[in-house]
């Protein structure tokens, strides 16, 4: 364990040295919080480069970081990689068996002309000395991180049987500046926090970003007109629509239906926050709750048949489930003093939520297939906004450190945690985007 940790820190120092200078905005920090008995040992040999100028991305490094933060793999530190084969035929399997590696990835980069780079890689089973994958990609030199994430996804799926979610994007909100000089931004970045792009900016609060299932749009709440209103913005073209703007009360908490045709929202123009479903084509609103409590933070079950939401109808906030077509809500959270902001994994079994006990708010994951058993995946004290990766292998959440908000990615078992940090300002409300079409 200690060896692994020191090896990881060396790896991270190397990674930080590579990326900190040109990007400036990001730093990486992986923290191992528990045993990794189940993590599969894998070596990713530095990819060989045949001539040409040095490339901006160390592809093997990006793959190693993806594996390490997933909690499913532990990759051999770069400093312990004693041989550097770049083709399957050159692998001396005895070496990697001695180092107790189950799998090895080798690869090479070559100039494909016109600013394009050809990336070839192979995945081998060390014990069986068997080739498992051999693929190549041709991409612009500036998109090598994307290629690395796609390679990590393919290897992850080959070994675990579960689709990888490294080649995905995340959205979050930043607040830079103090008081009336604060600027809020809605940012979209790669799943590891790299390549941040601002998609909306405002002098007033932005909150609650939610990805459309096709990954083209983000719904969010903006106070730019004074009151809270809900917008839907196309992240490629930048065009946007105002979809909820009742003059009275809150227009908040948008959540897309799995088919992308409807938004569940919380509206209080009726007197107090209630859950509604807005049909985006017809703009027809259907009210789902009628109660004097605060009903908010709707989130759809993956089958689209029901909606989870937060309500304090029992006194303190708890999670309830209501049929999407209307009906009686059922309380589903019973552990902890209060629970809020449910996010549901793709299989509908795991439900992440913010659980508050005293002054400590942690991310708890309830497994409905295990009789509602709850496990904590974050330490608190003020953690919120859990968001599952599309394969539910990891979650993003927001934490507060000192006077600023930071984002963490944590493996679904809570054992491996990575902090994504922006150089300045307050970061909050992460939302993990859907799979991208392959």
């Amino acid at each position, binding site marked *: 364990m200690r060896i692994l940790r020191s090896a990881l820190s060396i790896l991270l120092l190397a990674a930080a040295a590579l990326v900190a200078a040109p990007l400036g905005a990001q730093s990486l920090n992986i923290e191992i919080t528990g045993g990794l008995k189940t993590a599969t040992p894998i070596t990713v040999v530095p990819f060989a480069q045949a001539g040409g100028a040095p490339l901006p991305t160390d592809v093997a490094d990006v793959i190693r970081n993806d594996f390490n933060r997933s909690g499913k793999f532990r990759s051999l530190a770069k400093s312990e990689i004693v041989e550097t084969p770049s083709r399957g035929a050159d692998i001396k399997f005895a070496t990697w068996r001695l180092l107790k590696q189950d799998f090895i990835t080798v690869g090479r980069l070559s100039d494909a002309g016109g600013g394009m780079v050809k990336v070839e890689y192979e995945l081998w089973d060390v014990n069986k000395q068997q080739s498992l994958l051999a693929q190549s990609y041709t991409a612009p030199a500036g998109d090598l991180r994307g290629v690395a994430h796609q390679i990590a996804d393919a290897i992850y799926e080959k070994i675990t049987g579960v689709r990888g979610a490294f080649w995905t994007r995340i959205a979050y909100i930043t607040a830079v500046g103090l008081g009336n000089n604060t600027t809020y931004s809605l940012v979209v970045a790669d799943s590891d926090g790299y390549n941040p792009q601002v998609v909306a900016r405002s002098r007033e609060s932005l909150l609650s970003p939610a990805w459309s299932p096709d990954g083209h749009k983000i719904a969010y709440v903006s106070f730019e007109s004074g009151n809270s209103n809900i917008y839907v913005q196309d992240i490629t073209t930048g065009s946007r629509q105002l979809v909820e703007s009742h003059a009275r009360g*809150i227009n908040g908490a948008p959540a897309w239906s799995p088919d992308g045709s409807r938004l569940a929202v919380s509206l209080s123009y009726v007197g107090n926050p209630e859950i509604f479903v807005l049909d985006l084509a017809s703009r027809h609103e259907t009210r789902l709750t009628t109660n004097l409590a605060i009903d908010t*933070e709707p989130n759809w079950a993956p089958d689209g048949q029901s909606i989870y939401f937060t309500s304090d109808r029992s006194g303190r906030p708890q999670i309830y489930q209501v049929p999407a077509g209307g009906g009686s809500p059922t309380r589903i959270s019973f552990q902890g003093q209060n629970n809020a902001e449910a996010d549901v994994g793709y299989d509908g079994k795991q439900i992440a939520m913010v659980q508050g006990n005293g002054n400590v708010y942690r991310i708890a994951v309830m497994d409905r297939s295990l009789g509602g058993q709850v496990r904590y995946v974050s330490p608190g*004290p003020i953690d919120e906004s859990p968001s599952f990766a599309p394969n539910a292998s990891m979650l993003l959440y927001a934490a507060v450190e000192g006077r600023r908000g930071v984002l963490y990615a944590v493996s679904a078992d809570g054992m491996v945690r990575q902090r994504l940090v922006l150089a300045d300002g307050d970061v909050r409300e992460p939302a993990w985007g859907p799979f991208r079409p392959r």
Partner: protein
Amino acid sequence: MNKTARVALVALFCLGAAACSKKAVKPQETQPPAEPTTTAPETTSGKYTPADLDTDACLRQRVVYFDFDKDEIKPEFQQIMACHAKYLQDRPSAQIRLEGNTDERGTREYNLGLGERRGNAVSSALQASGGSASQLNVISYGKEKPVCREHNEDCWSKNRRVEIVYTAK
């Protein structure tokens, strides 16, 4: 009645009302000299004027604080409710925006709801004491606009608040 005439009348009523004397801010020369002062009706005496918002000890208090996850208005704020309600009654053209806020504990959207609940509680109290619903507008910022950013009860208690903002005096 146009605005000038209304200002003149208010100033006129104050001439005959002892309670107005300490609040009077109108320079002498703007007061019509020839009008009889004894005809001022009893009910208009002691009315607030916009200047009182800056000078009156009660009206200058514009923040109501709350207990954790609660929206009950505590007894110590009843006097503030009463003087702002009286102002609204005295000045039918006055408008107030009630800005509801919470501390950092709990999720953002839930806290938007809680901030609104607090704003509504203040709105109800002002209406119960004579303000009109049409003069009151509630907006919730939840935990988005803290006045204090430390993670302790002292700080949290400053953030659990409704701010009374006059948008028209």
